[in-house]
């Protein structure tokens, strides 16, 4: 191949790249606050978490821009007085793509902050990028505690509690209500999230009930959709408690296939993240199922002006859809950012605050969310802890809704590890320094 062709091909490539380079500088600084939301708009995560989360973010951004919609302190216009420009990025496509997208978001498209990630691998991969580029990244859903327990970050935050409390709270409920729990079984998706949940739950159970023993552990593939054999195995082992961290379509399929086989009779199935299937399943959701919502979200949310506004606005805007944990966790994160940016802007004489100023404002922040009072308590003020609640399902034919009854609420310090203790060790040591009400 003659040199000339090399040159041609090469220059072609170069010119495209450099052109894009220019394009990027153009749109970097505007007098708006560009907020990127990364969440699943396609694939298995879209229905239950991705799209509802994006809806929630979009709704809040619009409300901020109109101003005066939310109760104080969130009634100020925009973010730090700046108009919010929120746009969504699909989380589907693997970590390489996500890291590329994150770099594009900060570097090319000039986003001032990004809130995102349902998948733990994307959280793990994204955090160092934000740190390297010194840009704000708020993780809103991924479960793994590894992020702030294995690393320290300045610009990365998680405005929601990690998955440990979901399982500790569940175990505590079982203990507190003295439910039969000597024989414990579990069915969890066979990937990191499922395995972490099961480890936490099983160890918590053993700590809280020394007679508890594991009767069966099942590991369906994520996205399997077929649970016939697992259900048989569970029925056969006949444990008194069946723990599961299945979610979304998998959880729905599991319930649809398990209910007619009496899996939910004469035992408690404990679903740590269940509220998002209440509305889709409706009357198909069995009664007396032990459920959590990864925080005081959805049906567990305590009455407050903010929560009333949130639920009403969401149902109004999205055709009667009831907000579940994903919208709540997103709202929680967006509101944390709102508060921090407002604070930082005020401190900055009303001018657009820098990432460092926002980071400072976020560190150790305490704020009100629809899900109650949240506190950046762990990871040097970067990892939030929040209260959690567990209850039993009850179908209400009148309201045509699945409600939660016999709810137990657990203070944040009761179900989350204290500062500088790894979740795993905290559970293994029997919850030292836990402050329960």
């Amino acid at each position, binding site marked *: 191949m003659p040199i000339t062709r090399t040159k041609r091909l090469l220059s072609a490539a170069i010119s495209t790249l450099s052109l894009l380079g220019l394009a990027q500088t153009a749109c970097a600084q505007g007098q708006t606050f560009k907020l990127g939301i990364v969440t699943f708009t396609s694939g298995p995560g879209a*229905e239950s978490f991705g799209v509802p989360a994006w809806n929630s973010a979009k709704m809040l951004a619009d409300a901020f821009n109109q101003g005066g919609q939310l109760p104080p302190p969130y009634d100020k216009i925009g973010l730090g007085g700046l108009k919010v420009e929120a746009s969504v990025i699909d989380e589907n496509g693997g970590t390489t793509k996500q890291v590329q997208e994150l770099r594009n978001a900060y570097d090319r498209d000039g986003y001032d902050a990004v809130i995102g990630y349902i998948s733990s691998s994307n959280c793990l991969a994204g955090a160092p990028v934000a740190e390297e580029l010194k840009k704000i990244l708020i993780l809103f859903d991924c479960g793994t505690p590894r992020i702030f327990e294995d690393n320290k970050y300045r610009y990365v935050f998680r405005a929601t509690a990690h998955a440990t409390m979901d399982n500790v709270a569940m175990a505590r409920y079982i203990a507190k209500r003295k439910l039969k729990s000597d024989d414990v079984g579990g069915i969890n998706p066979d990937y990191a999230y499922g395995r972490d949940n099961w480890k936490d739950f099983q160890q918590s159970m053993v700590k809280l009930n020394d007679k508890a023993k594991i009767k069966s552990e*099942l590991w369906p593939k994520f*996205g399997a*959709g077929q649970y*016939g054999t697992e259900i048989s*195995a569970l029925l056969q082992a006949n444990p008194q408690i069946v723990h599961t961290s299945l979610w979304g379509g998998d959880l729905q399929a599991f319930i649809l296939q398990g209910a007619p*086989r009496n899996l939910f009779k004469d035992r408690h199935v404990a679903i740590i993240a269940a509220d998002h299937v209440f509305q*889709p399943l409706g009357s198909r959701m069995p009664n007396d199922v032990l459920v959590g919502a990864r925080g005081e979200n959805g049906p567990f949310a305590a009455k407050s002006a903010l929560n009333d506004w949130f639920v009403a606005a969401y149902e109004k805007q999205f055709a009667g859809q009831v907000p579940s944990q994903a919208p709540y966790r997103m709202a929680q994160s967006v509101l944390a950012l709102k508060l921090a940016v407002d604070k930082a802007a005020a401190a900055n004489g009303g001018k657009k605050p820098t990432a460092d100023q926002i980071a400072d404002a976020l560190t150790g922040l305490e704020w009100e969310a629809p899900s109650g009072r949240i506190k950046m308590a762990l990871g040097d003020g970067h990892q939030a802890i929040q209260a959690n609640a567990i209850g039993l399902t009850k179908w209400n034919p009148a309201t045509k809704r699945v409600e939660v009854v016999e709810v137990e609420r657990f203070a944040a310090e009761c179900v989350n590890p204290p500062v500088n203790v790894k979740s795993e060790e905290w559970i293994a040591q029997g919850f030292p320094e836990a402050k329960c009400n």
Partner: protein
Amino acid sequence: MQLVTTILLDGLIDASWIFIVAVGLTLIFGVLNVLNLAHGNFYAIGAYVAATVAGWYYASGDNPPAFGLVLMLGSSMLVAGILGPLLERGLLRFLYERDEVILVLVTYALFLILEDATKLIWGVNPYYAYDPYSLFGDLKVYGLTYVGYDLMLIVFAIFAGIILWLGLNRTKSGKLVLAVIHDRDMSSALGINVTRIFVIAFTIGVFLAAIGGAITAPKISVQPGLAVTVVLLSFAVVVIGGLGSIEGAAIAALVVGLSRSLAIHLWPSAELFIVYLVMALMLAIKPQGMFGAVQLRKI
């Protein structure tokens, strides 16, 4: 005894499902030598169509429930019957003279396109068709409740298998299909209209995938992301059974179903891996699969 029965029964139910879902892929592979990565999307489309129809049909409670199932199957078949020829005539046929692997790439592109297409048509909110699931009641086997619908799956799979077998071995075009599977070049040399066979085979393949989706719809929540798992599972079945062998697919489905049920009951932590494990063993022992012929380039 109870455990054995349960393992066998669960394995059989699983195998029936796997067979219906996977056999279409084998057929297409055998005839067109295309590893159809979009197979799972046709499954998903079948499920969506069925669920949509079920939604309309059961909306008014007084319709006879049994007919709903028929309607679901019929409608998904109909859509497959349109989609199959459309894609084969409209796209694949232009590429047959290209390298086979390009066709794999084409189906990969199809996979990407259909992923979003289904989402744009049906959105991300779930669709349900659970009414037929309770159609056949349920019964107790050794004290374990089984849903009649799942047991009917076994009957359905055997039925489908027999129809397919008869269709291939007892009808003229079926025999032609087998001839093409056996030796493509020879068949065209003998003047068999291979392209016509391609349309037939591809359509039947899409057909079966869609039916798989339709019969599964009642027991799942139909929503984005159905495709990937199915295509991987079917792919494993094709490899285990031997590339392009129908009998192979049947046996492989049984092997996978039973080994999965064995694993879940006796060695649960291996569930995710068991299919790959069987596949690996098969590759190690008989790389061309149980019923596959060694396909070395002649030397």
